[in-house]
């Protein structure tokens, strides 16, 4: 697809989502909110994982801090939710700067495990914090009106996607890509790798925290287990990889597709849903390791051989 066509299509999708409350059922609205938030998360993971090449498992920390920002502001201090969103973003960005500095020096699996460890540490710390309701969690005031949440999460996804689009064609983004492709060479060519990596980390902190804040306010209940859920982080990665990491629309598409698949599985075959989801992940990664975006580009050229070629390229 031509870029212009892509944007027109994207605009149509956005328009479709924006009007869902007027024609769709409450379930569709709910599915929409959920999918939009997941898409935002996949999209912000795309910044650090897809563009910069750092497979972060710490994005659920940002998401959780965003949620706790809102929850603490609303429950403990009776502040407006907007203040809570800002608080969550501030917490997440602080975290990104303070811990990004040491952790982003690690590469590959080590970085992945370090961020995974950070997520576990945060879960355990928050489980002991009085202000966060310890492991019992916080119950937020009831917020009626899903329409508002749909529009909010839609706006957030649009902004996140615009940010990614900007990244893909800016000097900053080229710096990130250079880091992903070869960090030593990038530094020699004048990319301030430390600064760039931290900025990328902080940028995904902003969007993930906002998503977490909106989600917490919407679901009205927050506990450390669901706020800092590692499997949510894995889902962000799967969605981004499924859609095509390092592309503008891939992660969002991947998120919608997988959210729809798992929602349908969960309501149609219930108890077997998880097994199917696991199989979908394994099969998708094996047969289309570069995601749907790559499949769409190359399937016409290769046909069914595309899948064969992928396996041939990566097997022993």
């Amino acid at each position, binding site marked *: 697809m031509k870029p212009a066509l892509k944007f027109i299509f994207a605009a149509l999708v956005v328009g479709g989502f924006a009007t869902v409350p007027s024609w769709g059922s409450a379930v569709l609205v709910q599915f929409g909110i959920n999918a939009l938030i997941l898409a935002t998360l996949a999209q912000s993971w795309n910044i650090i*994982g897809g563009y910069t090449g750092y*497979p972060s498992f710490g994005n659920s920390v940002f998401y959780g801090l965003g949620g706790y920002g809102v929850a603490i502001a609303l429950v403990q201090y009776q502040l407006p939710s907007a203040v809570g969103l800002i608080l969550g973003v501030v917490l997440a960005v602080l975290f990104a700067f303070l811990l990004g500095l*040491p*952790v982003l*020096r*690690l590469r*590959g*699996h*080590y970085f*992945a*495990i*370090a961020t*995974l*460890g*950070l997520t*576990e*540490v945060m*879960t*355990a*710390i928050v*489980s*002991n914090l009085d202000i966060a309701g310890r*492991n019992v969690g916080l119950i937020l005031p009831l917020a009626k009106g899903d329409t508002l949440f749909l529009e909010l999460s839609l706006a957030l996804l649009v902004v996140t996607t615009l940010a990614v689009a900007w990244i893909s064609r800016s000097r900053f983004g080229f710096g990130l890509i250079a880091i992903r492709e070869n960090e030593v060479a990038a530094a020699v060519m004048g990319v301030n790798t430390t600064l760039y990596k931290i900025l990328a980390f902080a940028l995904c902190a902003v969007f993930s925290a906002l998503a977490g804040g909106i989600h917490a306010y919407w679901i009205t209940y927050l506990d450390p287990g669901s706020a800092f859920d590692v499997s949510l982080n*894995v889902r962000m*990665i*799967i969605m981004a*990889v499924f859609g095509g990491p390092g592309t503008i629309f891939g992660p969002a598409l991947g998120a919608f597709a997988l959210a729809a698949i798992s929602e349908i599985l969960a309501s149609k075959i219930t108890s*077997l849903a*998880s*097994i199917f*989801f*696991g*199989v*979908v*992940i*394994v099969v998708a*990664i*094996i047969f289309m*390791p570069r995601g749907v975006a790559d499949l769409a580009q190359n399937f016409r050229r290769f046909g069914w051989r595309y899948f064969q070629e992928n*396996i041939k*390229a*990566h*097997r*022993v």
Partner: protein
Amino acid sequence: MQLLWQILVNGVLLGGLYALMALGLVLVWGVLNIVNLAHGALIMLGAYVCYYFFTGLGWDPFAALPVAMSLLFCLGYLIQRWVLNLVIRAPMFNSLLVTFGLEVVITYLAQLLFSADFRTVNPSYAGANFSFFGATVPWVRVLAFGVALALTFALWLFLDHTRIGRAIRATAQNLVAARLYGVNPRQLYALTFGIGAALAGAAGALYGVVSQINPYIGAGLTGKSFAIAIIGGLEKSLYVLVGGLFLGVVEALTALYIGPTYTDVVSFGILVLVLIVRPTGLLGRTA
């Protein structure tokens, strides 16, 4: 003082089992560069094998341990041969995601097959203990500790003193090195993963003897194994033992002096710190 001594003994005994839990993970990670998120699920399967041989056939759990190891070896071999070998040259998080998918599938299949009932392997001698300089020492834990030690040692012997073992170690430096030893890499990888799975199976069999088992214990055990692997470092199988003992003792002391809700803060905090300060592990060479 008496209490501290008892806590230290508890920690060391727990640490031995921890080490065995992480051993297979370290092998697979170090050699194949696969971070196996399904490792805990394999431990869980090993525990169930032991459970069914114990309750169904009346086998002693320590006699069922080799069975658990063999079955898990076969499963691990097949997983690597027909699934992971297909993605081994893809970007690193692809193999990570595949193992995550496998974890989900194994866990939920286990619930279908074994039900969500909580199980224990409870042989008659499970509670037997003896006094050791004033500390109460449970026999099963000592036995489990001994088996963990023996298997760690056996793995070390195997890797250092057999041709296949050396081929596996060479593969850790360079994925195609297997060919130099005249071994088909496909089979060598599958063999390596199989051994990793067999060690997980052994850990599972022992885990069932000291703790309850259910289909969902896997994820937590994977996390724990990571912490041990990182603390010990990926270089030598014997270092894993140190990582396990270290974590076991630290957790026991944390539970006593800081509070049992803080063990995860401390153990994963150490994991992150070690990674930042000494990514090669506490005992590994500095980069």
